[in-house]
């Protein structure tokens, strides 16, 4: 539908191994570790949430205290990989890239709104506009989930906010987070080269030029291997 994956593009992982010369660095080891740790924590948090919340699963699994403990800790630890990632210059540089919009990002959004999926109509830097908005949204959502979760965990922390209100926001936002994450994973599923980039750190330059046309430009010309910052 709104796929940005290059289906016409011969990107086979078998013919282009990750260590093949010519592939360009997209994510440093630190960034990949941050992403992997956050992903696993998020998965753990969502799976335990399902076992606490969905009746049939709750009946199947039981062990409420154990499941709740895993849920609480995976939730509060969720921001930790990103905080540790701040020690990495490459991660900090990418946070800046994610944060700031450029003119072509608005063009990307307009194309997305009109459901135009061709890469030419959707120029992007290292991160496209969708990824930028996703990053900001999920960061905010995780913080709200953590705050309302802590209110449920430590009752009476803020007597002004009723536990029922905290639970209501936590439950509603949980569904939104689940839907958005399904979208995130669908996008990754549709684009093997993007997944390869996150797994090995390196991507095919042709893919980069096609889907992130402004990235190499803004980093000072193609083929230049950047290690970050």
């Amino acid at each position, binding site marked *: 539908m709104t796929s940005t994956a290059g289906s016409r593009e011969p990107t086979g992982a078998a013919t282009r191994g990750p260590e093949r010369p010519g592939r360009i660095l997209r994510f440093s080891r630190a960034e990949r570790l941050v992403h992997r740790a956050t992903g696993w924590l998020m998965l753990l948090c969502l799976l335990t949430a399902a076992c606490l919340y969905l009746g049939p699963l709750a009946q199947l699994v039981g062990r409420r205290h154990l499941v709740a403990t895993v849920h609480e800790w995976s939730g509060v630890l969720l921001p930790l990989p990103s905080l540790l990632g701040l020690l990495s210059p490459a991660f900090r540089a990418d946070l800046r890239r994610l944060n*700031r919009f450029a003119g072509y990002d608005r063009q990307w959004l307009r194309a997305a709104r009109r459901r135009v999926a061709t890469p030419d109509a959707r120029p992007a830097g290292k991160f496209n506009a969708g990824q930028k908005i996703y990053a900001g949204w999920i960061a905010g959502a995780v913080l709200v989930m953590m705050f309302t979760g802590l209110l449920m965990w430590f009752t009476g922390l803020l007597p002004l906010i009723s*536990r029922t209100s905290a639970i209501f926001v936590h439950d*509603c936002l949980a569904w939104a987070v689940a839907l958005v994450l399904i979208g995130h994973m669908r996008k990754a599923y549709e684009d093997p080269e993007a997944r390869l980039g996150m797994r090995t750190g390196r991507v095919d330059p042709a893919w980069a030029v096609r889907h992130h046309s402004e990235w190499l430009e803004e980093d000072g010309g193609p083929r230049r291997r950047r290690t970050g910052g």
Partner: protein
Amino acid sequence: MADQPKGRPDGAPVARRTMLGMLAAGAAGLAGAPYLQHGWEKVLASASQADSTGLTGLLPNPSGFRYYSIVGSVPRKDATDYELRIDGLVDRPRAYTLADLRALPQTRVVRDVQCTDGWRVPDTPFEGVRLSHLLDAAGVRPEGRAVRFTCFDGAYTESLTMEQACRSDVLVALNMQDRPITHEHGGPVRLYVAPMYFYKSAKWLSGISVTDRVVPGYWEERGYDVDGWLEGADRRGDAGA
């Protein structure tokens, strides 16, 4: 922008604004939750009437029961093998079968069921034997000051002080919503402590033991209040407390 095609994007910090917007939405959600929730419950009530799939049951819903169990699986018991033992600091310990309990005078209590996890079931009728009746029949000794409850899931425990246990709205419940309590809801026999949060109403009740002091129950050892009185807005419809 046209002057500097190269270099990093330096436009508006959209991601940061999105994040802050999300935080603001969360705060607004918390502030408006009582009103939003009221409207949402109405929408759900009308939606669930037209819903034959039961999918609306998955939506965030503060009203309606949810299934909780602290163990992996709970054995099923019915009239043939159910037994409720009353012992501890009493003169006449004994065991009741389901038929014994049904033969005793039944009391009906209709209140809101309120869980600490935010869900609520308004005006839910429970029917059963007053706990005080069973305690009187067993003859509590003078040193008996509290009651400890055990369950046939093999793990859950609860407690009440003797004063709480003797309230008229504390039942050994056999019926819920005018039907025998199902296994999922803690049947065939569960405790019902109307003036407290629902975790005090132990499911799958199998033992009542009079003790000389309060022994904290399962969730209470994990941080819940031993006295689980309904508080604030949760206490609506509870004129007796």
